[in-house]
């Protein structure tokens, strides 16, 4: 092949340029130590890196959730332990065990006063806040969960802890749609049933509502209406129906009826009738078991699984601590309350009453022993949850380490390699430059005379 100077110099400048660009690339690597700066440089590593980064971010989220859950449980544990200490102290020979049939009235007064003071301590402890949240408020932790009604009954989020009576009035939970009848109508609607017909397709909402009971049977066409429209329809049409049926509407305030919630929720508390019809009996009694078992989940990377709006229990961590689960709720077979607060009140009542007898007070004392035992079980439960958290934390921390190591491997260059490579490129470039000064050789012309 014929070789000319033009060819040589063209080729040289091309090679020198590619050397320089390699040097530039190697130089970049020594400053940021990244293996690639654009996905196109290494699409396979980039894909891996994206996946690892996502996992790392999730891990960080889980750890942040976990540390919050930990602090909640710690605070809760100390509060519940305080309650337990109070209960133990009350149950000691100084107070409850000191109650005998032959007690002096002075002593009875002292004991009952002490019991009343203890009641207050229990309520204030159970209304403990962490940040702006009430720890023992279950899913309604925005305001203090435990309050007292006018008669001195303990209310948990507005619900009587012994009877389950809702101070807000009767409600009907029809497959997620909550119809509330207001304080004024407390038990006037009890016994009526509400049947809701849902659209056949999920998310189509309510098609019609039937209210029946006594002489009343009305059907409201409610297709596609929202909660507000339903509410107005119920208020007006119920009023008309009751009046038409000749039922006394005295005391009934239809304007207090409210509708909220979501009709497409999975069938939970209401009675399933057929196809797309669900029925619920109107009642002002709230299911206390459901309240005590309320769950609030946080995602700790346990394989979150949400099925039809239901979080699968094992796939997330439950941080809910409904206060009544600790203090007890409902009544025993013999009619004594299970709730510690109520029991103390009952015992104090007995002590203060004129016809005091050991036989009358005994069932309450026994019930108190049981409830205290129940409280201890719950403390153990918190302990078990804390253990789970510790184990999960270790697992998350280990995972974080291994993720960081993997990210480092996929995205970052070993500094030694990067610097060595840079030095090598520098050497090549310098060599190329040196050759360059010699590459334009003398020509024949230099030797012509």
């Amino acid at each position, binding site marked *: 092949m014929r070789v000319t100077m033009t060819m040589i110099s063209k080729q040289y400048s091309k090679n020198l340029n590619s050397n320089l660009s390699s040097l530039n690339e190697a130089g970049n690597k020594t400053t940021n130590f990244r293996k690639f700066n654009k996905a196109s440089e290494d699409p396979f590593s980039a894909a891996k890196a994206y996946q690892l980064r996502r996992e790392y971010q999730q891990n960080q989220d889980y750890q942040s959730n976990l540390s919050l859950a930990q602090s909640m449980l710690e605070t809760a544990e100390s509060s519940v332990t305080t309650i337990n200490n109070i209960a133990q102290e009350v149950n000691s020979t100084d107070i409850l065990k000191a109650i005998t049939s032959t007690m002096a009235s002075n002593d009875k007064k002292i004991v009952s006063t002490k019991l009343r003071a203890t009641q207050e301590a229990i309520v204030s402890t159970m209304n403990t806040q962490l940040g702006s949240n009430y720890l023992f408020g279950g899913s309604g932790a925005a305001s203090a969960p435990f309050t007292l009604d006018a008669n001195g009954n303990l209310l948990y989020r507005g619900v009587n802890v012994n009877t389950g009576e809702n101070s807000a009035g009767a409600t009907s939970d029809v497959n997620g749609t909550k119809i509330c009848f207001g304080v004024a109508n407390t038990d006037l609607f009890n016994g009526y049933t509400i049947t809701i017909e849902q659209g056949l397709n999920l998310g189509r909402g309510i098609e019609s509502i039937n209210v029946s009971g006594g002489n009343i049977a009305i059907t409201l066409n409610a297709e596609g209406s929202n909660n507000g429209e339903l509410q107005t329809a119920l208020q007006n049409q119920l009023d008309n129906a009751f009046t038409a049926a000749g039922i006394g509407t005295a005391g009934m305030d239809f304007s207090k009826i409210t509708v909220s919630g979501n009709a497409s929720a999975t069938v939970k508390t209401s009675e399933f009738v057929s196809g797309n019809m669900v029925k619920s009996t109107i009642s002002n009694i709230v299911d206390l078991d459901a309240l005590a078992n309320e769950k*609030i989940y946080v995602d700790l990377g346990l394989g979150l699984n949400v099925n039809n709006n239901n979080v699968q229990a094992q796939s997330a961590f439950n941080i809910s601590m409904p206060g009544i689960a600790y203090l007890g709720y409902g009544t025993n077979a013999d009619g004594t309350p299970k709730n510690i607060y109520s029991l103390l009140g009952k015992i104090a009542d007995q002590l203060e009453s004129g016809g005091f007898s050991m036989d009358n007070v005994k069932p309450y004392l026994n019930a108190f022993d049981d409830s205290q035992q129940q409280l201890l079980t719950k403390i153990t439960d918190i302990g078990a949850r804390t253990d789970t958290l510790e184990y999960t934390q270790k697992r998350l921390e280990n995972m974080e380490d291994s993720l960081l190591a993997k990210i480092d491997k996929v995205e970052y260059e070993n500094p030694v390699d990067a610097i060595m490579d840079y030095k090598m490129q520098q050497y090549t470039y310098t060599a190329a430059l040196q050759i360059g000064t010699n590459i334009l050789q003398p020509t024949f012309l230099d030797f012509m005379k």
Partner: protein
Amino acid sequence: MSSTFAGVYKALSGIQTSQLQLQVTGQNMTNVSTNGYTRQRADVYSVGSSGNNMRYASTTAAVGAGVMATGVSQLRDPYLDIRFRSENAKVGDTTTQLSAMSDIENVLDEVKTDGLEAQMKALVSQLQNLCEDAGNGVSESTVKTSASILVNMFNNYSEQLSSIRNQQKGYLKDNAVNKVNQLIGNISHLSEEIRMSEISGSSALELEDQRNSMLDELSQYVNIEIQKNSVDIGSGRTVDELSVYLVGASGTKHTLINNEEYAKFGFGMGTSATTGKECVNVTLTDLSGSTKTINSELSTGVFHGYLKILNENGEYDAGFAVIDPVSYNPTGETSSASGHGIGYYQLSLDTLAQKLAAVMNAANSTSTENKPLFASSVAGEQITASNIALSSQWENSTGAYITTTKQPSGVEDNSKATDNILAMIKEFSTDIDFQTENGVSLFTGTFQEFVTNLSNTLGLEQGNISSQNNTYSTTLATIDKQRLSVSSVDINEEGINLIMYNQAMTAACRFMTTLDESLDNVISKMGIVGR
């Protein structure tokens, strides 16, 4: 028998030829670094004795009549030109695509940690935080801020992709089409000049060099074929007439230049007959003056590069009934996916925005209450990446707007429940089947995976085009080297020629003086013997 002074003219021809050769050498040496210059050579022949007009055959030996230069010609291999030009079209095609793709990559850059995917991660983190403080307006406003950054990012990406599209459109319209029209015009005018000077008998080598350079440049834009026809102009001489054709995808040839007549490219906007999507058209006004769109004929070259980037929408072009571009009747076939131009990335972002809005809106709404999180900023328009915004309800809400649970318990306040927030978080790790409007599957995976997959598709494609570009460029460089090997000037060679021609001249002169001396003997010294 040659005449007495015949030798003098022979010597003269030697001197004149050497002089011409020295001139040609000088021309070569002065143009050693001129771009596109082809080395020249004097065409020299030795002149034979002319004895055929004699009545009788000569008995003496006939000697030639010296040397003669008939002209100057170029040393060039036309086959290498053809190869160079066909390879140059491929390099032009891939370079154009590569430059546009690297622009797109700057937008869809997920390697940096503040891209679209990272913002989705941030939104999930904020939702996780909300679990810890559900129903709190303050906690919710951080989720809102994060979501609003996300929609802004969508808008921003979309706008940047549009501006890349406009840039590419501008490059095609103002640079490529104009440049090609200018080149075609210039080549045609040059050809005319070359023809004229050839008719008048002088070769126009330097003009041919110029024309070759322009043809090289033209070959970058479209696939061309060059044809030279020798035309007899009488008195035994011929001139070359040049025709340039555009070779279409189907092999059809469209005349670009025929002597002084030439065609003209144009640019126009239109919609694809099959997909109904906006597209750009490259038109050709042929020699007879009729204009037609020739998009499908441009199979390679810079034009093809631009058309691919601007007109091809990948999977989004698939599944349409194909409309015949001439008769406008359906051909009965269904269109298949095309290459991944800007449109593919724009439409993919739109699909993602729609899907994200649809899933999150459904997650927040209940059957009796429509509580969208995202909406289109233009009322009544379908959500796209460019118009996605926070819904006005969410935007204007001051308290808690996110649905925390869809299963309220029997009591009033359920704001701290988290099951629906977890359901929303879960949506970000749920595989979704992303499809085009025709139901062509794009990708199955999570939202975040869709973003990174998009970035990776681009990366892989770019890698692919880049390696093609490298191969074509290397081949082009090799062919160019071969061309240079034939056509470029070598100083050594010319130096040697210089000495050689100089010596040849000296020899011719010496021959002249030798002749002179020998004739001197005959004229002055003969017949004076004994004087």
